[in-house]
């Protein structure tokens, strides 16, 4: 691994070190592999090639072919390998490349990994980590662009994390690997190259703990994955107009830290949830319902959801741009919430 020394050299004056999202993921994974000999990685082109998104660069050099395994294009067997190995005490990290490919191995995730501990009367754990790249914005079209967190968060037994920046890409990955449950790490493809401050040492981020990315008093914006950055950009724009929004990054969507959201809404009296996934049946529906249950008396307006329209992700960039929520739609939503009250 070269990342640590490289980064030190890049920050000789002691300022915080910056790493890209994908390098932060890679560093967290490498450190988790050093920490626990039972962690191994399997997936298509993860070892020799380092992953099509460079998620696994250099790991074969350090950990060798025993722990870095290239597999055939056999996702059901790949996840199943992870489930079986996890049931026997290893801590597999299996990579699904594009999240859309989950379609061909959903049984192993949903009926096997998620339910095994429960059905076995607690006799074992399945400490499996599934990594995958999600999200639209690259002109990759309907079968390579989805955000399917709602499918997975709906399944008891699974955990789902959505890193929103380099810091969370590393910390959530480490926690996913250390966790004794099956955890899906949904990296975002558009964020892969984006840089952020990342501590050099290994660290975890508690699963199920939201983070308040910006404090504000007027509207609570709960944003998932890449939408956190969009919400922060909207916050800058709104601040110029005298509107202060609070931005909450749940980081983990299963389990979901609703307490942080409730506390915020009780102060701001308005809430907006934004995600890339289609609005219908998305996490926004769950979050809105829970806020209404817990903080109805505090709300000055119905909780607003912003997500994608109910269609597959379109290819043409003009359509894709109109499809994926962005800072302008978030700012617009906040203004609408404020007008209502």
């Amino acid at each position, binding site marked *: 691994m070269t990342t640590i020394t490289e980064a030190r050299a890049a920050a000789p004056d002691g300022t915080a070190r910056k790493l890209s999202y994908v390098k932060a993921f890679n560093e967290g994974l490498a450190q988790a592999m050093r920490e626990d000999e039972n962690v191994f990685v399997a997936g298509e082109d993860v070892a020799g*090639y380092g992953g099509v998104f460079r998620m696994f660069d250099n790991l074969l050099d350090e950990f060798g072919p025993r722990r870095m395994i290239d597999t055939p294009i056999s996702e059901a067997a790949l996840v199943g390998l992870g489930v079986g190995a996890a049931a026997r005490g290893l801590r597999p990290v299996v990579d699904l490349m594009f999240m859309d490919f989950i379609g061909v191995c959903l049984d192993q995730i949903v009926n096997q990994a998620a339910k095994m501990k429960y059905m076995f009367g607690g006799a074992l754990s399945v400490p499996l980590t599934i990594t995958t790249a999600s999200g639209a914005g690259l002109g990759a079209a309907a079968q390579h662009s989805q955000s399917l967190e709602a499918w997975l968060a709906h399944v008891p037994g699974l955990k789902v994390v959505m890193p929103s920046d380099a810091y969370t890409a590393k910390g959530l990955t480490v926690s996913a690997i250390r966790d004794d449950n099956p955890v899906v790490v949904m990296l975002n493809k558009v964020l892969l190259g984006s840089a952020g401050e990342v501590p050099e040492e290994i660290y975890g981020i508690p699963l199920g703990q939201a983070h308040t990315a910006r404090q504000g008093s007027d509207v609570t914006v709960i944003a998932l994955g890449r939408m956190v950055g969009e919400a922060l950009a909207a916050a800058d724009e709104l601040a110029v107009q005298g509107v202060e929004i609070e931005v909450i990054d749940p980081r983990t969507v299963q389990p979901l830290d609703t307490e942080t959201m409730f506390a915020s809404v009780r102060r701001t009296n308005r809430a907006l949830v934004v995600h890339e996934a289609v609005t219908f049946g998305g996490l926004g529906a769950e979050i809105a319902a829970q806020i209404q249950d817990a903080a109805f008396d505090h709300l000055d307006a119905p909780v607003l959801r912003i997500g994608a329209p109910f269609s597959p992700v379109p290819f043409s960039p003009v359509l894709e741009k109109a499809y994926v929520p962005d800072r302008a739609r978030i700012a617009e939503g906040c203004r609408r919430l404020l007008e209502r009250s």
Partner: protein
Amino acid sequence: MAQRTSKKSADPAANQETAQVVKDLHERMVRIRLFETEAGKLMEAGRLPGFLHLYVGQEAVAAGVMAALRDDDQITSTHRGHGHAVAKGVGLREMYAELYGRVTGACLGRGGSMHINDLTRGMLGANGIVGAGVPIAVGAAFAARYKGEDSVAVTFFGDGATNIGAFHEGANMAAILGLPVVFVCENNGYAEFTPQSGHMLLTDVADRAAAYGMPGVIVDGMDALAVHRAAADAVARARAGAGPMMIEAKTYRFYDHQGVKGLRHPYRSDEEVAEWKARDPIDLLEARAVADGTATRAELDEVWQRTRDEVAEAIAYAEASPLPDPADLLLNVYSG
């Protein structure tokens, strides 16, 4: 064990017919080659959004198979689907317009490279999910038989795709239902950056056919005529109701897995690439045509020139085409 095919006819009437087939194959291959090399250039110039899995090098397979099909025969394709579409007769204008994301494109700008289709030509779609086209071809063959038609379905897939469940389930399903499906494996030696030896222990993918009780044949995928003969046999057999069959065409992609040039990790050697390029399927067919008098060099050049003009015109059409209207985001999500 799968059988290796090699046939040559000494009969003059057959040779006359062969001359026509050779010209047909040549035309289809040149169309694919020019479509793809131009698409690669446009991508490198930053003019096309999204991913492109180009077909350059594998032209003999699409051309050889498609020349054995009728318009009403159905095909399912892969992420590397431009060659199949061009050879099946999908319009170059609609294809380029799709790559540009224009509303005049084959998917109205909604699908891009990996979803090009044309039902008027029996092209049931490229596919972004490896192996997914295989069972769909089985369903298309089922529909043909159900409706009392004698069309067949051909499914194209790579060496890597034969490791996924959909392939195995689809092959067994076609076999047990006795459906008119031809399974065409384009073995280009790699699944993305993993060589065949790194993803299966078999040398010949065609051996997998035996597991489903169907014949499997191996053919030189750089020899368009050989591919065509094998395909014509398999199609005739399927059409006659004798059930599915598998053809493995040994071929090579001259470009990278995605795009034109590999940017990192030399997963294959320059020598290997050069060896395969020395057996360029178009060069091979042209050399043979000129040598046996099937065509003159001038006739072949005329095909290139005519196709070049057509490609340029199609690109101009795509570039001049309107973009889709964002007000139509919900178009075609449902029928009715």
